């Protein structure tokens, strides 16, 4: 692969209800922060990818509505529906095509403005499945039961993910839910859908993230501090839940394998300094760690108990607090990339991990992690 780098990142604070801000307001803030971070102005941006979802935004062709605030006028702008990591993948492809030296990628949503269960219920097949009334939470709960049953992971171990990530969020001024919790707090929180308690689930959130990708030539032209894209891949599983083994994530393993190969990584658990993974639910952090090859199958909970995934651990996972501490759908994966960039540059503030060289960021699209996008970012070209 020709070389490319992320040369600017910007994000809004993640909040439960940004009542004062429209989608465009959020995009304006994130884009201007990313430009300032990169030492660029909007004229230095060659093309733009916006990432959104029409149902979440309550309008059709939602991606075009944030264009003005993203500086797209008279530029080539294209759109991705799905998680921001997939928008960034498209942005990277456009950069590597040779047609554009720099690409601005944005991703936004406001969960506060609609009804999550109705919107995620609408992602089920309308002929066979939708009328049952399941949504993202109940399908994830079904996945959690399958995973717990197969691996003998426990509800207490799941709860420990929530304790860790909400605790990390205490150090992140952009997080929505910084909380000092105990395992009992999680287990005693309301049961939403067995085995998921309220504190096993990520919250409804508003937020936007923007990143700027540049080719090798343009990456060092500006004042910013480039972080190099070492490997990236995505892979999808079958659509119907009943066609998959919900207790496993083979499409994530496949995406990770290809991303590691591209990055020249042979032992990911040893070589990767930290991972920002898509912990929409506590069990998913453990599942994704295993499918990424960062722990053996069914072993992530034991490593978690040993403290391996804390900020000071051998392999910090979600030092930012993760999605459990703030989950603006669509933006969430792009935020994982931005967090990895901050860690590699050494400007993650109070949740900075020591000695970061390679960081992994993961995004998810579809129910129960149907599709996964894996990014490996590094300090060195």
């Amino acid at each position, binding site marked *: 692969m020709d070389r490319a780098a992320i040369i600017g990142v910007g994000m809004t604070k993640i909040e439960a209800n940004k009542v004062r801000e429209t989608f465009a307001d959020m995009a304006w803030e994130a884009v201007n922060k990313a430009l300032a971070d990169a030492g660029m102005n909007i004229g230095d941006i060659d093309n733009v990818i916006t990432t959104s979802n029409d149902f979440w935004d309550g309008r059709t062709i939602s991606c075009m509505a944030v264009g003005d605030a993203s500086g797209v006028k008279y530029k080539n702008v294209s759109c991705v529906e799905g998680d921001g990591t997939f928008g960034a993948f498209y942005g990277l492809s456009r950069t590597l095509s040779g047609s554009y030296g720099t690409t601005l990628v944005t991703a936004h949503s406001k969960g506060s403005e609609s009804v999550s269960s109705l919107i995620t219920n609408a992602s089920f097949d309308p002929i066979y499945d939708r009328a*049952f009334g399941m*949504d993202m939470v*109940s399908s994830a709960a079904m996945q959690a039961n399958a995973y717990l049953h197969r691996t003998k992971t426990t509800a207490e171990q799941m709860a420990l993910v929530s304790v860790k990530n909400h605790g990390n969020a205490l150090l992140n001024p952009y997080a929505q839910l910084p909380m000092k919790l105990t395992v009992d707090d999680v287990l005693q929180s309301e049961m939403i859908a067995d085995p998921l308690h309220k504190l096993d689930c990520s919250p409804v959130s508003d937020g936007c993230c923007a990143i700027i990708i540049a080719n090798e030539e343009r990456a060092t032209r500006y004042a910013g501090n480039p972080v190099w894209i070492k490997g990236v891949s995505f892979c999808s599983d079958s659509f119907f839940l009943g066609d998959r083994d919900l207790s496993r994530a083979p499409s994530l393993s496949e995406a990770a394998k290809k991303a590691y190969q591209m990055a020249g990584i042979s032992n990911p658990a040893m070589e990767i300094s930290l991972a920002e993974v898509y912990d929409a639910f506590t069990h998913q952090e453990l599942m994704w760690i295993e499918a990424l090859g960062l722990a053996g199958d069914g072993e992530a909970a034991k490593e978690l108990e040993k403290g391996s995934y804390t900020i000071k651990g051998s392999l910090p996972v979600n030092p930012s607090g993760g999605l459990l501490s703030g989950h603006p759908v669509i933006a969430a994966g792009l935020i994982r990339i931005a967090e990895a960039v901050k860690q590699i540059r050494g400007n993650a503030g109070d949740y900075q991990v020591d000695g970061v060289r390679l960081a992994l960021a993961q995004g998810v699209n579809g129910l129960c992690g149907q599709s996964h996008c894996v990014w490996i970012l590094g300090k060195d070209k």
Partner: protein
Amino acid sequence: MSDIFQNVEPMVHESRISVPYHWWAGDTASRFFIDLRDSQKIMGTRCSKCSKTYVPPRKTCPTCFTPNDEWREVASQGTLISYTVVRRHQASLPKKPPIIYGLIQLEGADTAVLHIIDELKPEDVKIGMKVQAKFSSQRKGTMFDIEYFRPVH
């Protein structure tokens, strides 16, 4: 920078996306629903290349990317692959919680079908248990022609 909107009351506009829509079920699902409605039979499609039977039926095989070439009836009972008990009310739910949802692999099928599990207490539901379809007395050609699945005693 001074905030010129500092004392502006944030206004909220209420609306809804409410667009009537009807989905053509396709010939594969149509046949499945007709058999369910008229004969209380659960039919799957089979890929002879993969030796896999898909329930609910698909026209093409997602595994090998060829058309499924055979219809096959499967049993109305099977194994619970996974489940959840929804406790908190959500706008998408068809009735009051608790509702038990299950993925059921019917005997003769290689995939699992999504449905509601009933006639047992939420605390008694277990992965691996045998469940059986209870057909609705008023069948209209939808997934609710099976009212729910219940434990096999």
